[in-house]
């Protein structure tokens, strides 16, 4: 195989600057939204004492899950020694870091007392999965940065041993990280919609899909920016296959999760709510998560993309990735908001009511500041990636595109 060479972004198109500018504006607006919420309190959000985690958490968790998945490509090249993915390993690493930073920013800025971040970083309750996650997140940033260093340092990259070791380490860590993220919900015994060990593998499968989708979209954007074909047809085909596999995995764990819950009559209420009677949550589950997020990407990748088909491989990849991301946001929304909207079972078998709205489906409408803060998280990740690609050689050289 020919020696892989890497490049920084140079000779920028107006589109590049336009996108960087757009992300900067979104971040500025998001910060404005944060200050607004911080000043007035969460009363200006759609959140309440039943839906305590709202849209910012949806974006934050989605980005954190996607971050660990974005490392897939690097892991496949280092851990599973698949050389076809090696040119994209650096991009995979920097994208993973950027997405995690974006997600964490949103998470922190949605705290009731964000100025106490130092408390969260210095005062730990080690029985808390949240506290473990603080280590998992910061550890991920450090480990992936070190992994990138082993890839980019000439002497280390030459021998390959350090890269392989760090690749394994980062792979194990990212599995732990997503397990931890899924377990934030899986450990909640009080909430019927969660409280299941399957949340961890479900989140891992989802992370593979969403991380790959982000990687693919950034790569396709960079193909346009560099006016080079960074991905060969073979790689496009591999990515399409990976989307099929990961989406099938997500569907499998989703099916098992709900079938298991449906088997126990005590969970029929919450399952009926999510799957049948939950209004927006039911729609987002079936249309957003299942159809748009998984079934359509599978159909597009498996049957509609490639030579002589409805879409070219690259078009199919782009469409499937966008759909996977939209479906992913739906999945996290249903999981986080829908799971909280279903009332706690205080007295099983009894109907209850109170001034605190016990026994009722909690209402939640995302407020504009929440959405803006969440979007700012995505923009932080994209802006950081764009700047990183300009500053350091993370992108492989490709074949000059025709035309």
């Amino acid at each position, binding site marked *: 195989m020919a020696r892989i060479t890497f490049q920084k972004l140079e000779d920028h198109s107006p589109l590049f600057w336009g996108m960087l500018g757009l992300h900067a504006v979104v971040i500025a607006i998001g910060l404005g939204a944060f200050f607004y919420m911080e000043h007035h309190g*969460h009363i200006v959000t759609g959140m309440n004492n039943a839906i305590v985690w709202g849209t910012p958490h949806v974006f934050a968790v989605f980005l954190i899950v996607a971050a660990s998945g974005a490392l897939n490509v690097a892991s496949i090249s280092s851990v599973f020694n698949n050389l076809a993915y090696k040119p994209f390993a650096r991009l995979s690493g920097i994208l993973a870091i950027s997405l995690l930073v974006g997600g964490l920013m949103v998470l922190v800025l949605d705290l*009731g*007392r964000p100025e106490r971040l130092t408390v969260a970083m210095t005062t730990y309750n080690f029985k808390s999965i949240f506290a473990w996650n603080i280590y998992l997140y910061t550890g991920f940033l450090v480990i992936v940065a070190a992994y990138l260093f082993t890839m980019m340092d000439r002497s280390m990259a030459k021998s390959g041993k350090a890269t392989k070791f760090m690749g394994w380490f980062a792979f194990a860590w990212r599995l732990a990280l997503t397990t931890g993220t899924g377990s934030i919900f899986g450990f909640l015994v009080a909430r019927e919609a969660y409280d299941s060990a399957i949340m961890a593998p479900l989140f891992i499968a989802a992370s593979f899909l969403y991380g790959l989708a982000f990687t693919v979209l950034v790569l396709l954007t960079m193909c346009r920016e560099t006016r080079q074909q960074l991905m060969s047809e073979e790689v496009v085909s591999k990515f399409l296959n990976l989307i099929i596999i990961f989406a099938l995995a997500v569907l499998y764990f989703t099916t098992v999760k709900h079938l298991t819950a449906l088997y126990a009559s005590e969970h029929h209420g919450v399952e009926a709510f999510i799957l049948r009677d939950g209004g927006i949550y039911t729609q987002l589950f079936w249309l957003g998560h299942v159809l748009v997020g998984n079934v359509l990407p599978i159909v597009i990748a498996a049957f509609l993309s490639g030579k002589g088909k409805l879409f070219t491989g690259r078009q199919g990849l782009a469409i499937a990735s966008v759909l996977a991301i939209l479906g992913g946001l739906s999945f996290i929304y249903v999981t986080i908001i829908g799971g909280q909207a279903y009332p706690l079972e205080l007295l099983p078998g009894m109907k209850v009511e109170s001034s605190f709205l016990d026994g009722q489906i909690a209402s939640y409408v995302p407020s504009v500041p929440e959405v803006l803060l969440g979007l700012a998280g995505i923009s932080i990740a994209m802006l950081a990636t764009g700047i990183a690609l300009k500053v350091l050689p993370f992108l492989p050289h490709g074949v000059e595109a025709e035309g």
Partner: protein
Amino acid sequence: MSMKFEFPEPSREGAVCGNNFAAGAPGDECATASALPASPPADLATPADPVEVGRRWFLKAATVFTTTVLAPGVTLMAFGEVDGANAKPADQPVSSARRWGLLIDAGKCQDGCSACVTACQVENGIAAPTHPATDSQWIRILKATDPENGSTFQMPIMCQHCAEPPCVDVCPTGASFRRADGIVLVDRHICIGCRYCMMACPYKARSFVHEPLHDQKPYAPRGKGCVESCTMCVHRVDAGGMPACVEACAKTGNGAMIFGDLNDKTSEIAKRVATYRTTRVRADLGTDPGVYYQNI
């Protein structure tokens, strides 16, 4: 409560009071006036020995007075250990020898009564909720209906002060903590407002302060961006008192709430828990709540 009261000669004051009522005189000003019935009993209205009538009337009045004014206090002391001797010295840590708890008899919790809720709000400086979804509610009245037969009851529900509190387990900074004596609290100095404890609590017992607050009570620190819940009126308990809700419930005469040390086998709460069939809300989750319920 029965009372024997030896009184060989009617006192002057008692006779005067009785005679005034017997005569139907308005504006009786004796100290027990408020405790006396508005009109004399029928047996006292019949012509009889005026001294005997006066004495019987005084004894009845005294009994009514004692029962209505003094008995609740005596009962509170017995049930709630309000004497100063039980106050925890400020320089000493709490001890696990005690486990403070509540016993709530839903059978005595009267429909429409929310004295415990009002007392909690007054005591802890919590405004009556105008926005039920976002305002803090440390204690609320839960109305339950059995869909099978339509029977209903109501009961107050608040932080259950679990021995295995999920809120404490999940709190990343340790701001949610359980004192050795069983009271679960939030340290407002290190609460970062992540709300994970609210996700974990099976009782919806916690509230997030959604907007700026003013005029907080010095012993009940509260603030925007932090999570809060029932403190079991820890400031009162440490001073040898009882939670405001329990006190208010006793004052209504319902006596549906008892506060005390579950570890003290001689305490009223421990005796009742040992004697009667009690239930703890979602005990199946293994949280070992410190709040017991009867008749639910």
